[in-house]
């Protein structure tokens, strides 16, 4: 069968590209190896009555431009903001990162009056950087080595924006892009529990510790989100993260697109340096002159492409591209709402993200464990109970807890993951939570434990890296995924990349998918329809 375009992988980026192509009138097919769509943005019922967002679990990065252009609200998507959040330390204290500005100021003053002012400075510094970066997300990164007018004008555009910051803020921007989150926070704040709370955003999903240069920028990646226009706010997709991809799939079908789930890609068909179609694992063959891969760059080109069809420098670049999964996840069905030792009665912040930390050093030491091939003995966890806000994910009175764990290595120093190790890993995490919640363990009715190896096996993310590759400078912007191939095109004509392995990278953002669609359509002499304001 012949299509205008085939998208490999029904993750959020693949579906985003697919929607834009279908809307531009291309006859588009999406293929998916699992028998459900969603990739890492899924809602799954693994125990009766509970819905797990069993990979990604919060939504902040999904670009509002994309939500609008694909009419996702019309197809059922609702993003609901969640409130505040808190960190508990081992002294039985808590810091509530209140979402209300005045309440947060009071909370900061409670801990340290100087940090109330320091925090204002810190958040303005972050906001300035967000304002600088945000417009770059939905643009294709220029190739600095190219002399094409388009690249030069894009470089000049970025240069001008940079220049407009003024000398002092330009210096601040360079510092921000290259500093460690620990040093950045130390410049503004004094209180350990507060810095520990904020530092997490700099290391989630990375193979870096809070003291590693470059982590301040990662923080930005997590701050960029917009829920109803407020920068930095996070939200839940009502019904779990699968609601996002479900809405995308429905939007896609409504534009005439077709999805085939249940059989993955075997290989791309290439003739004379040009892609001609795909062959699935079940033997089905489909033809198209445009094929877009939503898989990460290693699976796309090392696992499913004949090396002979690729230039040597590109293969080297892909081989070198670093994944290094560092995150694990526990999804837990709870028989009731757990209580937390240090939480005052009526604390609203239990609805937000909870962490159990003394200081940034604890995260750094957790990173050192990972570097040496062990899961962290005292891991950083991002603990949420979305069912306090989203009534659709568990029976009334019951709850669902998502526990994101940093760090867990893809390969352990003492051999591969096995059931015993997974159980020991889960115990480490549950013990950590239990130190702060006496009844937590007793409420567990079902749990799913996901190591980077599990994430790779099920979702297909190489080494379980949630961003389809590390967010270090050598893999950002024009370097992502491979210098010279950062504009969504691969060395094979007609074969494109749209996954998070491309600029601007991971998170359930959709920007790579939208950018890839724009490049595909421009090669076909068409324009992407970004909706009203574009």
């Amino acid at each position: 069968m012949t299509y205008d375009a085939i998208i490999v992988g029904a993750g959020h980026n693949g579906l985003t590209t697919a929607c834009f192509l279908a809307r531009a009138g291309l006859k588009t097919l999406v293929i998916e190896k699992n028998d459900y769509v969603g990739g890492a943005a899924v809602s799954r019922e693994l125990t009766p009555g509970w819905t797990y967002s069993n990979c990604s679990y919060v939504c902040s990065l999904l670009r509002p431009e994309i939500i609008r252009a694909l009419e996702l609200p019309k197809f059922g998507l609702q993003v609901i903001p969640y409130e505040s959040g808190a960190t508990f330390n081992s002294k039985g204290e808590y810091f509530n990162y209140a979402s209300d500005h005045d309440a947060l100021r009071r909370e900061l003053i409670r801990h340290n009056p100087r940090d109330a002012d320091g925090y204002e400075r810190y958040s303005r510094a972050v906001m300035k950087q967000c304002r600088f970066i945000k417009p770059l997300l939905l643009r294709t990164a220029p190739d600095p080595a190219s002399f094409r007018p388009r690249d030069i004008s894009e470089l000049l555009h970025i240069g001008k924006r940079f220049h407009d910051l003024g000398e002092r803020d330009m210096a601040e921007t360079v510092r921000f892009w290259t500093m460690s989150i620990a040093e950045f926070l130390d410049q503004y704040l004094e209180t350990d529990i507060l810095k520990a709370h904020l530092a997490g955003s700099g290391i989630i999903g990375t193979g870096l510790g809070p003291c590693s240069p470059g982590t301040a920028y990662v923080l930005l990646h997590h701050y960029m989100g917009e829920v109803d226009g407020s920068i930095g706010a996070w939200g839940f997709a009502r019904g779990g993260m699968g609601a996002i991809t479900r809405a995308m799939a429905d939007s896609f079908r409504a534009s005439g697109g077709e999805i085939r789930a249940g059989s993955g890609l075997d290989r791309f068909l290439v003739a004379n340096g040009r892609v001609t179609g795909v062959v699935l694992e079940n033997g089905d063959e489909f033809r198209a002159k445009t094929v877009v891969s939503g898989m990460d760059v290693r699976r796309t080109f090392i696992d499913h492409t004949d090396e002979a069809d690729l230039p040597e420098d590109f293969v080297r670049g892909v081989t070198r591209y670093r994944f290094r999964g560092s995150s694990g996840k526990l999804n837990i069905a709870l028989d009731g709402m757990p209580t937390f030792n240090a939480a005052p009665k009526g604390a609203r912040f239990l609805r937000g993200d909870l962490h159990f930390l003394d200081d940034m050093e604890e995260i750094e030491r957790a990173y050192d464990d990972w570097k040496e091939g062990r899961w962290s003995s005292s891991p950083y966890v991002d603990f949420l109970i979305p069912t306090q806000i989203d009534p659709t994910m568990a029976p009334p009175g019951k709850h669902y807890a998502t526990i994101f764990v940093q760090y867990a290595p893809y390969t352990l120093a003492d051999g591969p993951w096995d059931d015993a190790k997974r159980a020991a890993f889960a115990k480490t995490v549950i013990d950590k939570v239990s130190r702060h919640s006496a009844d937590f363990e007793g409420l567990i009715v079902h749990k799913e434990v996901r190591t980077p190896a599990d994430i790779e096996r099920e979702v297909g993310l190489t080494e379980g890296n949630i961003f389809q590759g590390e967010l270090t400078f050598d893999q950002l912007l024009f370097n992502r995924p491979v210098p010279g191939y950062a504009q969504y095109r691969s060395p094979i004509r007609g074969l494109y990349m749209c996954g998070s392995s491309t600029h601007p990278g991971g998170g359930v953002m959709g920007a790579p998918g939208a950018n890839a669609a724009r490049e595909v359509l421009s090669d076909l002499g068409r324009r992407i329809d970004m909706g009203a304001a574009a």
Partner: protein
Amino acid sequence: MSPDAIVIGAGHNGLVAAARLGQAGRKVLVLEAEDRPGGLLGEAGGLRVAAMPAGLNPEISRTLALHRHGLRYGKPMTTIALGAGAPVRIDGGRVAGVDAATAAAHAALHRRLARQAGALGRMLLKTPPRLRDGGIADLIALGRMGLSVRMLGKADMRDLLRIVLSNVWDLLNDEMGDGPLAGALAMDATLGGAMGPRSPGTVLALLYRMAGQGAGAPGQRAMPQGGPEALIGALVKAVEASGGAVRTGALVERILLGDDRVEGVRLAGGEELRAPLVLSNAHPRRTLVDLLGVAGIDAEDARRARVMATEGMVARLDFTLSALPEVAGLTSADLGERLVVAPDMQVIETAFNAAKYRELPARPALECTFVPGEPPRLSVSAQFVPCTLKAGWTKASRDRLAASVLAVLEEAMPGIGARVTGTEIATPADIEARFGLPGGHWHHGEFRVDQMLMLRPFGGAAQYRMPVAGLYLCGAGAHPGGDISGAPGWNAAGQALKDGRAAK
């Protein structure tokens, strides 16, 4: 008669600056707190902080005619990496002691980095342009910087832009794998700084070191004939030959500020010396906060001077020996080369782990060399040893440091411990106290992207000009920074002269 210019500190950069000013006809007085010139290059308290200098920038040596004042460099030093197996000898791109494939991979990597370092090297002897609010000259300079990177060609430029902010751990693992050779290169990338091999930014530090061409080859060290004293001696002679004077035992206590202009300095003891131009070879923080005083600068600059990263992480230890040792695989001549004891990158990273938490590493990574004489000495730089130790620098911590260094040495050179007859230790905290050098940091501030080029020592103050008219920074805290190139002093004097001409 009062001089045209005062230089604070007779370190090599201060002397270079003084000589350049002298050549331009300015009457210069160099004030040195110690009783001998040389700064970190000189002997202080029984040891020399900068025991193994990189060579002075050749253009500076040439212009100051240092050969006429007796400066001769020996051949570039060979780096010998001591690990578990046979020693690995590294002479620039040439390596002996590893398998052929690794040697070839290293040679290719060395060529590639040397090319890229060359592009950076063109910026070393220039005042960095201002990012904004500068004039046409700054725009042209910015353009030139971009152009020298573009001139590398597409492939190298792309490669440079990819690796420039990445870590040396990944680069070396990609290109040749871990081991003593990688350990020695990672040592080059990290020594003197506060980053482990896995820290992004260490490739830039390596490139920067390779950009220095002092020994006639990228990044190699060279010992002047006659040792570091010979370099200092030649520089002092160059200063004197140009009509300048070096006064030792003169501790500057204060930079005197008139109505927004520098007016001279006050020495400990109260003597005031007047000059319309003052160049400070001191650390930027010491210059602005201690010598000029925060009252004379804006709070933002005071804050930048205060928060700049400058935690020194190298301790110096000198062991006096009963006799030079026999080391398997090394000739007696080899003992005077640069010996690196960092069997692989993992060892360096593990040492860094402890330092992150302000603790002593169990196994420091070492750079050392034997100094002949009576008695002979083994001079060691140990990293990572933090300046601000959590437990404090007690006698117990010092003993632990010495013991850990000796234990590492013993593995690399069995029997060395038995020959040790005496130990001198200079922790970063000692270096800080002795030289008024915040953090005891060799390079007067960490070498990182955000403290380089137009951001060294910090944005808005990177053109050697300090906030007060007539005051310039000429030490390693200014672009292009540390090692013993003399470039900051050279550039600062050039900038001061240029500003002086413009004012006329």
